[in-house]
């Protein structure tokens, strides 16, 4: 089983380091072979060209390290984003990666059972997904907003926000949903 942890190279606080170590340790305990990718300004932002849908379907047209990261993403059983919470959402470095996972979805629209619109999945199976925010001195609205952004429009995603020292029991509880096969949270709907 493979896991991918995506982190922000611009925000190496003590809290982040502890959270990163804990996450890697807990995934190793679950039997995952884990790769950590620190991302930063070296990756270019999505330019909204939709080339990944209508020119090179499934692949971003920007030739930098993102294609390799997207391949690793789709070939993982679990993916964890550790993101600083900035203005209640993902940091720019992490959001650039999230925006550029668009090739993993199809263009087109469909209506989900709750009535909302979504793009259909390109693949039959997606990794179990965890979106973890961290920061210091976050106000309650920022924490609530990070949760709303990550949970309100997605199904079956593990979400948590940490401040200060990461609590091992809390992080463990998040990953406990991962079954022996590593895909307890997985489903056809699973996408960013």
């Amino acid at each position, binding site marked *: 089983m493979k896991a991918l942890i995506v982190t922000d190279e611009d925000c190496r606080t003590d809290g982040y380091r502890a959270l990163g170590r804990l996450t890697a340790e807990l995934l190793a305990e679950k039997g995952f072979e884990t790769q950590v990718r620190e991302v930063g300004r070296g990756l270019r*932002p*999505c*330019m*909204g*060209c*939709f080339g990944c*849908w*209508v*020119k090179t*379907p*499934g*692949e971003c047209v920007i030739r930098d390290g993102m294609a390799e990261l*997207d*391949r690793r*993403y*789709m*070939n993982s059983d679990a993916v964890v984003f550790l993101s600083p919470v*900035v*203005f*209640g*959402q*993902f*940091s*720019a*470095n992490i*959001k*650039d*990666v*999230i*925006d550029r996972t668009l090739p*993993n979805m*199809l*263009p*087109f*629209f*469909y*209506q989900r059972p709750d009535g*909302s*619109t*979504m793009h259909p999945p*390109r*693949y039959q*199976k997606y990794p179990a997904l965890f979106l973890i925010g961290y920061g210091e001195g976050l*106000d309650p*609205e*920022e924490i609530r*907003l990070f949760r*709303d*952004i990550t949970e*309100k*429009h997605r199904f079956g995603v593990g979400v948590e926000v940490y401040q200060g020292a990461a609590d091992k029991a809390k992080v463990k509880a998040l990953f406990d949903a991962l079954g022996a096969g590593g895909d307890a949270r997985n489903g056809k709907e699973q996408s*960013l």
Partner: protein
Amino acid sequence: MKKVMLICGSPRTEEKTASAGFLAHVEAALKGPDFEKRRIDVRRSLKNGPEAEYAAMREADAFVLAFPLYYFCLPGLLMRFLEDYEKDCREHGRQQKPVKIYAVVNCGFPEPEINAEAVRVVGCFSRHIGARFRFGVMIGGGPMVSAAEGAGPVKKAYGELEKAAADIAGDIRGEAVPTLENVLIRPDFPRRLYFFLGDMGWKRQAKQNGLKKADLYRRPYQKTE
């Protein structure tokens, strides 16, 4: 004289984006000698170095941020611009005046409600720089509303946008506006038609690029182990 920064946060490289088009309607409402307007294109600004734009923003009375919704929040490119602006404010001092901030957000899906969290992000950003967030304009089906400008089914949407733009102008002037609630703008299309036209558009673009319909479903990263 109110200094207004009209900030376009679309990551797209074309000049005529949906966000730029909606922002132009706000710009048109800021008429007369009361306003000194400056347009900022976030992509170009980050490419060339945003120092001059940041200096102008620190002295502004109002920002109007127009951008597309990416993955239910702000595009990475716009986050970079705002994160760096906040750091710049910490170095050079906060806003010189009590700046008012407005958000004009459009999404590719027809339901405008999904822009709500992005509007709240702009609210959080406002608090971080000591500004006053006022309200957001949330537009559903943005690219289609923009492409169909002037056509019957979007006339109502543009009427609502112009009313919201007039409220932004009045609020910047300091006039009492009827409400500071977020404005929802929903395209007047049946959803099935919206989906059908959208899907046709993707297929047409693929064909123009020499692809067949089946190519759209490629799985280049299909799990290999």
